[in-house]
């Protein structure tokens, strides 16, 4: 019984590090492909669950039975489900998400147009969240039980308890309607709109590249409030997580050893403890980024930010299922890609995952 297993393990030893690495990469690629397949299956099922008749959505009110049957066949609805699924897979692989019933564009083109706006917002927000949240959590942990810790925890607690659409609305009420410090919505002032059509689609970057300072400042002005709010939500989560990671490290014996050796507080915290939480931090920053896409859907709706979130909610409002599924699939794909990226970065940061 145990003989084949023995040879198997010894073979694995003979393969050495290279074979092991290849096997690991192969298994993670396989895992990602199955996740991807499942993702597509899920969106396919959701698409088939819609109560509305897709044929009626195309034909409108005036049609006869012949036209109905023709469109029904054109959509492939007369074929068995697994065939429909395969043709769905084929079209997705060709980046064909169908046509939007509202904008009359292909969903893929629409997504390419709106996605950079969301990416710009999300990147800025995760930067704000990381730069503020991680140090806050670490300081909270180091100064555990003091007023600094309590204050930090309260700020974080409010951040992940508050409904972000409500925070956004209140910010608009106070800072736009009453104080008039921030603009009312959108990405730039109306008279700056369309001045810069850049290579990245991220307006701040494009304006900078083109040297259009007025557009640049207008864009910065517009992105500040939504990015800060999203960043606050990410910060709340990240400071809570980094606090608990740091507390766990500070209770370890190697920290006690370092203290006994007479090492100062700063090297203990940053050179010893922090090094050991980097990998965990990377994981939660990834999770925070994915969670941020959730918040972006709501914040974009509140601030009239013409990104993926607003596109998704508008599509929901008009029951434009192709657009909804395309946007949802894109968000799922982004999450998978980010997770994959973290997996790769792990191998560089954490020597334990290499062996």
């Amino acid at each position: 019984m145990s003989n084949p297993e023995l040879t198997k393990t010894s073979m694995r030893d003979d393969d050495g590090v290279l074979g092991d690495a290849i096997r690991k990469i192969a298994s993670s690629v396989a895992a990602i492909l199955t996740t991807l397949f499942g993702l597509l299956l899920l969106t396919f099922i959701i698409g088939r669950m819609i109560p509305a008749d897709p044929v009626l959505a195309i034909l409108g009110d005036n049609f006869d039975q012949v036209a109905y049957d023709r469109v029904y066949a054109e959509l492939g609805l007369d074929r068995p489900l697994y065939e429909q699924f395969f043709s769905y897979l084929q079209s997705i692989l060709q980046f064909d998400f169908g046509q939007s019933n509202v904008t009359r564009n292909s969903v893929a083109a629409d997504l390419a147009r709106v996605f950079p706006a969301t990416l710009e917002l999300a990147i800025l927000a995760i930067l704000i969240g990381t730069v503020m949240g991680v140090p806050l959590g670490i300081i909270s942990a180091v100064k555990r039980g003091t007023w600094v810790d309590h204050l930090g925890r309260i700020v974080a607690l409010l951040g992940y308890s508050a409904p972000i659409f409500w925070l956004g609305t209140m910010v608009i009420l106070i800072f736009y309607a009453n104080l008039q410090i921030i603009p009312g919505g959108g990405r730039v002032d109306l008279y700056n709109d369309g001045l810069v059509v850049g290579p990245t689609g991220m307006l701040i970057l494009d304006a900078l590249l083109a040297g259009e300072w007025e557009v640049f400042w207008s864009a910065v002005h517009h992105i500040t409030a939504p990015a800060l709010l999203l960043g606050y939500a990410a910060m709340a989560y990240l400071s809570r997580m980094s606090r608990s990671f740091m507390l766990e490290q500070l209770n370890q014996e190697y920290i006690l050893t370092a203290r006994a050796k007479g090492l100062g507080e700063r090297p203990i915290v940053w050179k010893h403890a922090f090094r050991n939480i980097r990998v965990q931090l990377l994981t939660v920053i990834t999770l925070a980024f994915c969670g941020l896409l959730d918040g972006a859907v709501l914040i974009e709706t509140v601030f009239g930010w013409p990104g993926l979130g607003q596109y998704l909610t508008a599509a929901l409002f008009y029951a434009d299922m192709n657009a909804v599924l395309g946007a949802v699939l894109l968000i799922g794909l982004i999450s998978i890609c980010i997770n994959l990226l973290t997996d790769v970065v792990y191998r560089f940061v954490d020597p334990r995952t290499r062996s």
Partner: protein
Amino acid sequence: MSATPKTSFKAWLLNDDFSSPAQARAHQAYVTWLRFSMNPLALGGLVVVVLLVLAAWLAPFVATHNPLTQDLTRALLPPSSTNWFGTDELGRDVYSRLVYGARTTLYIAILVTVIVGPIGFIVGAAAGYIGGWIDTVLMRVTDIFLAFPSLVLALAFSAALGPGIENAVIAIALTVWPPVARLVRAETLTFRKADFVVAAELQGASVPRIMFRYIVPLCAPSVVIRLTLNMASIILTAAGLGFLGLGAQPPSPEWGAMAAQGRQYLLDAWWLTAIPGMAILLVSLAFNLLGDGLRDILDPKHA
């Protein structure tokens, strides 16, 4: 050697030299409660949750008006002694709608939790205890669900199922179960090789018996904590769906939808948006504090 029972009930509870299993259990519960009540924040959270439950249960007595009665002559009135939180665009009393909205909020949160708990237990315990290809398949499935941010997945499902409160419950439940299953699996892995499980296996206990008699009870504390903390995020997701018009449908009162409708009158009637939002914040804050407090007591290794 028993003292007079009336005066020493507390002493009986605190005495750890037990004379009966009932006393041991009572002692455990009492000591846990004492430790919990020493945490003022967690206690505050509990108070808010209890108030929420009472408001939902006794809504007809707590509310001052009928939440659905419209009176266009009294539309958009600011907070006053007759309408404590003002009136909305149709002249309905915001305070009364808020009180009835507590029912919607609790209904969603409890129903989702009741659906998700057993699914998480079964999937997680099966994956962790049985292992092998069942583990692989189940964990792949949770991975797929985890690949979506929760609100986006809930949005997609409620778009497909159509708006409405029951569909919102199903949509949210579909997004909440994977982390619970993951947690149960991780916990199960830590004691699937424990002596008491092996002993039960040697006695010929069936797989379901081992899972439900030996493994599930041991996972229960951490799952209860997770579900309590989850309540906060369920409430936020439900409010988000309501805000986007996919949750409870008008005219039934739902806090997220109330805040969304109030946005149209933001400049004239700030209370329409501000007050429902504050209610959501308060309740989700309370569940977070309660969950943190429970974790400190029941799960000392994460304290």
